[in-house]
């Protein structure tokens, strides 16, 4: 009996910790610094919140069986448990309910996917991003480019400037091997595959500097193929662009 109580206490504590984590609402995910990221963040919340009762129920059932149906000292040796081995209505329920859950999740997931990958007919700015081993080349419409020196451990991270609140079309490609463009705060990444160009939009909603990574393994300096994204106001962006032009 005492052991049973201990298990229950531990389970209760664990649940409390989990719930406390859950109440912060982000479940550990960055809240996202772009319009598209908001969508992803929401579907993340949906999936996580759906997971809590699913996993919770299963855990409670497991914990209950362990505690309630443990063999006790008072049991006669060789005692058997109940010999029931099926329960058709129950089996139908525990098949059908998950089907309904996953169908609902599917519908929501695909709607989000559509929105996240939707492409605006007239973006405010088009930035061409070329990934190469191991660095990034960002080309702005007027042809100013920002090239990172082929990087090693100590190379400076190249900077990508973006104007706040505008729809930016990223046009992504690679010229040697597969890389992936990833800004965790935008909750989005896309592979850069040689021979193909991919387009997606990002509409930054927050000013600031964000870390970017190459996410697809690309060899020796994969870990050092980082970059930064700085989101600034339109004026600052324009003057930065002019500076680059002058420097070029």
């Amino acid at each position: 009996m005492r052991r049973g109580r201990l298990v229950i206490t531990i389970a209760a504590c664990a649940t409390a910790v989990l719930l406390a984590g859950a109440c912060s609402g982000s479940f550990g995910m960055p809240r996202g610094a772009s319009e598209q990221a908001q969508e992803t963040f929401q579907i993340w919340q949906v999936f996580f919140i759906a997971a809590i009762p699913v996993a919770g129920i299963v855990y409670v059932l497991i914990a209950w069986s362990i505690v309630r149906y443990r063999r006790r000292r008072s049991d006669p040796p060789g005692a058997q448990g109940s010999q029931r081995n099926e329960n058709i209505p129950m089996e139908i329920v525990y098949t059908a309910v998950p089907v309904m859950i996953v169908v609902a999740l599917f519908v929501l997931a695909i709607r989000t996917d559509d929105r996240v990958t939707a492409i605006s007919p007239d973006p405010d700015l088009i930035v061409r991003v070329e990934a190469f081993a191991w660095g990034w080349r960002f080309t702005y419409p007027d042809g100013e480019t920002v090239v990172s020196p082929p990087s090693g451990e100590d190379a400076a991270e190249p900077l990508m400037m973006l104007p706040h609140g505008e729809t930016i079309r990223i046009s992504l490609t690679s010229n040697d091997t597969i890389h992936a463009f990833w800004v965790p705060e935008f909750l989005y990444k896309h592979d850069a595959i040689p021979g193909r160009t991919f387009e997606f939009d990002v509409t930054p909603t927050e000013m600031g500097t964000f870390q970017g990574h190459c996410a697809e393994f690309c060899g020796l300096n994969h870990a050092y193929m980082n970059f930064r994204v700085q989101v600034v106001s339109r004026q600052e962006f324009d003057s930065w662009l002019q500076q680059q032009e002058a420097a070029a």
Partner: protein
Amino acid sequence: MTTTLERRPQVPAPRQRPGVVHRLVSTDHKNIGVLYCVSAFVFFLVGGALAEVMRTELMEPSRQIVSNETYNTLFTIHGTVMIFLFVAPFASGLANYLIPLQIGGPDMAFPRLNLSSFYFFIGGGILVLLAGFAAAGQAAAMGWTAYPPLSEIRLSPGVGPDLWILGLVLVVISNVMNGVNVLTTVFLMRAPGMTMWRLPVFTWNMVVVAILGLVAFPPAAAGLTLLLIGRRLGGLVYDAAAGGDPTIYQHLFWFLGHPEVYILILPFFGAITEIIPVFSRKPLFGYTGFLLATLSIGMLSTGVWAHHMFTTGVIDNPFFAAMTLLIAVPTGVKFFNWIGSMWGGRIWFAVPMLFSIGFMLNFLIGGVTGVMLASPAIDYQAHDTYFVVAHFHYTMLGGSVFGIFAAIYFWFPKMTGVMLSERLGRVVFALLLVGFNLTFWPQFVLGQRGMPRRYVDYSSGLGYDTPNFVSTIGAYVLAIAVCVFLVDVWRSLRHRSPAGDDPWGGYSLEWTTSSPPPEHNFDELPRIRSLRPAFDREHPELAP
């Protein structure tokens, strides 16, 4: 109550220890099974040692003990070894040992083929290790997925990748041979009364695993062949500049890669489904549903491969998301079978049962995070981060490896005739459970905070420091757990506390013969009238 198949004058043979040479060439399925399990476990130690080096490097920001190049080799070989040379062959070992016993047969259908498939596996394993270590400066370092163009000669010169490819081709051949053997044995060599619907669940799961292997391995061999031709004969199939397409490889690889993960988990679904009812003193709950779930997992798993390619932009994301989500349903059915089997039982928390419970606790987390990854939008964020690394260690280490330990503690007495220690077993379990969660829970956090996988190094100040530190400590705890386990095995084999034929009150046929079983497996077979022939013999009052 028993039908005697055959009586031969039994001179009680003195049980000598067979010599090493005899063990290496004997085609007896039990011997081959043990060979498989032991070699696979050695590969686990090797792969684990590599992981400890990786974790030590990642303990703190900036690079300390290995170069970028070495690190890339480490995870390449770690992943390949763990998947193709540890978990899958361990399952083959269990299958070889147990299937003939469970179906009441004398051996596998093709004993010599069986031995050669073992040696193909060893050959492949040696080549993979050579690819990592013997080829100084030219080691394979392209990840266990070996995507071109990175794995092409231009970017991965040296013989390492070639050896790796050849090694995997041998592994493919070994798996195909083994699959043929398993299926032929199960379909054609069952004892009288052992219908397909009385087949123990472990054997059933291995049937599905064998089918998956036959379906999924050859296309991967095609992909690897094209890779090798690209590297050595100037082939251009994956070369975008010449009009080829590198994503073709990804399709062929994941058409194996995904079924492979079920090849890694189904055997242990099977194993714990044998174990849980035995220790709950109940029949398995929902046998038919369990089989249907296994079959549908098998079928669905050949149609989900491109969920590893959501961020490539070259596939139909909704289709693969749908298939992937659906697979949660049959897996859930299994969870409810397990719970139903414990419900109303009298659960004996022997070590195999503890590991089975650990399996459920861990794998559930692996499963629900898998469902999250199945949403394309979430995967855009989580792909190639430590979130995925955590997901798959929760399924493969928290699931498959816990299943392996459950299976070892359960069947070791049958295989050797001696018990493992209950006391040390509990220590191993506790250390593994704590160490495992300590290692991999922080990796979910790392992934969410933006740490990509396959990074030898990370900057301080991005929130990666503490989780990495904790994770490394956890990995050390895991190493200790494995050491305690080795001590347990060593001690048990020395002290030899005899197990008897049936230490657990087991259900399937292997528990009706001696431990270890005689050369020909059964002196007499009990009548098989249900799923639990061994139980029926002990409890005629409860038998159908």
